[in-house]
């Protein structure tokens, strides 16, 4: 039992695998509602646009750091989330140095790069601290029922199609298709890869869309224009009429 507890704690201590991935831990930011996090994120991002003076930027940097580390995210997480911006920062500062020289270009370049970083950090915190379920609940309030159905059905099918893709890849490799990893990473091989994978995957998607739509319509969820057919008493007489008309036409 003690070993299990230690294992769980070590799992929580580990930085998550990918950038912007939800980090399962408990913090005041995690407990905050998704709407509040979006509002705080918008405020901080707007402040990043407006900040020009060094002391304002320094204050904003501290505020963002407080917001990020209050969510119990680690330095390793921070590096994973912001390493993309390191490249951006180098490009921007280099461009400023080339254009204005070291004396005039260093501060504006560094300021701009920092502003871009501060603009994106609140969004990163939102993704790191909000579970898919919470975001989905928030989205349901905003989207129409039909759009919600499409979005959340698609979300449900992400693992399904990932599995399908693996199975199709395996089947094509067994048939001799050159789909091994070293070949796939080069863009000039993507045409072959696409012809082996895309067509079966698209056919599978068409069939799954057909089946899923049929299943949803059978449960009363269909086109907006066909709302009348959802009235329970309406469907039965129509079917009876159809069956009686069929019976009249049928030679049996």
């Amino acid at each position: 039992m003690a070993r299990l507890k230690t294992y769980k704690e070590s799992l929580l201590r580990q930085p998550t695998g990918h950038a912007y991935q939800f980090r399962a831990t408990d913090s005041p930011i995690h407990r905050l509602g998704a709407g509040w996090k979006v509002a705080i994120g918008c405020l901080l991002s707007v402040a990043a646009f407006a900040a020009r003076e060094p002391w304002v930027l320094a204050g904003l940097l501290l505020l963002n750091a407080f917001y990020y580390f209050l969510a119990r995210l680690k330095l390793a997480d921070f590096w994973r989330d912001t390493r993309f911006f390191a490249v951006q920062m180098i490009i921007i500062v280099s461009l400023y140095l080339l254009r204005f020289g070291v004396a005039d270009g260093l501060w504006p370049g560094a300021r701009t790069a920092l502003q871009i970083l501060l603009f994106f950090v609140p969004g990163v915190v939102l993704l790191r601290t909000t579970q898919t379920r919470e975001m989905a609940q928030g989205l349901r309030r905003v989207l129409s029922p039909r759009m919600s159905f499409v979005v959340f059905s698609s979300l449900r099918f992400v693992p399904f199609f990932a599995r399908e893709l693996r199975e199709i890849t395996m089947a094509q490799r067994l048939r001799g298709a050159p789909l091994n990893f070293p070949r796939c990473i080069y863009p000039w091989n993507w045409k072959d890869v696409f012809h082996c994978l895309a067509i079966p995957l698209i056919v599978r998607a068409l069939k799954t869309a057909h089946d899923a739509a049929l299943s949803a319509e059978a449960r009363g969820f269909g086109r907006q224009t066909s709302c009348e057919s959802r009235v329970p008493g309406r469907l039965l007489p129509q079917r009876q009429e159809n069956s009686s008309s069929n019976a009249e036409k049928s030679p049996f």
Partner: protein
Amino acid sequence: MANEFQERKTGSAYAFWNKLTLRDALYLGFCAVFIVITRAALRLHLSVPGHAMFFTIFFLVLGRACVPGTGAASLVGFVAGLLSMLLGMGKGGPLAVLKFVLPGLVVDAGGIVCPQFSASYAACIGVGAIASATRFITFFLVDWLIGMEQEVILQHVIIASAMNTLFGALGAALIPSIVRRLKIHQLIP
């Protein structure tokens, strides 16, 4: 299966959404799923800047080719943006939606100008390149709001969006052959 897909004339996006069958809407949602899956798969292994645009543009144009109607590609982009936000795959948080919707809007605009563009290599490459160049707009907007010098903005967005445009055009170039094969097998109208 082609007959099962409702043929519709190019109209407004609102009319398109009203006439869209559940099957078509789900198919467009699945195109968005493919965008998300390919982005997720590639970001683990590749670090070539802009490569994700290859698959994004491919599936956006494919959605528009399979479900003809103004708004199809935008719907794919919108769903892909929401999915990537829900799955924590975009650094901009809610801004990630914009990153997918803008290319979708351009693909739809391409469909209005040339309804059969998915059958032509030149039109596909053109639409794909312009659609992927919309990254230019998001970069420009962020840089401009921050107060960067105009000359530096221009250089920065050209560096940042050039590879996106190249990969987007390549992704769109694969569409005509795939659409032709789907049409031969009567899978799409």
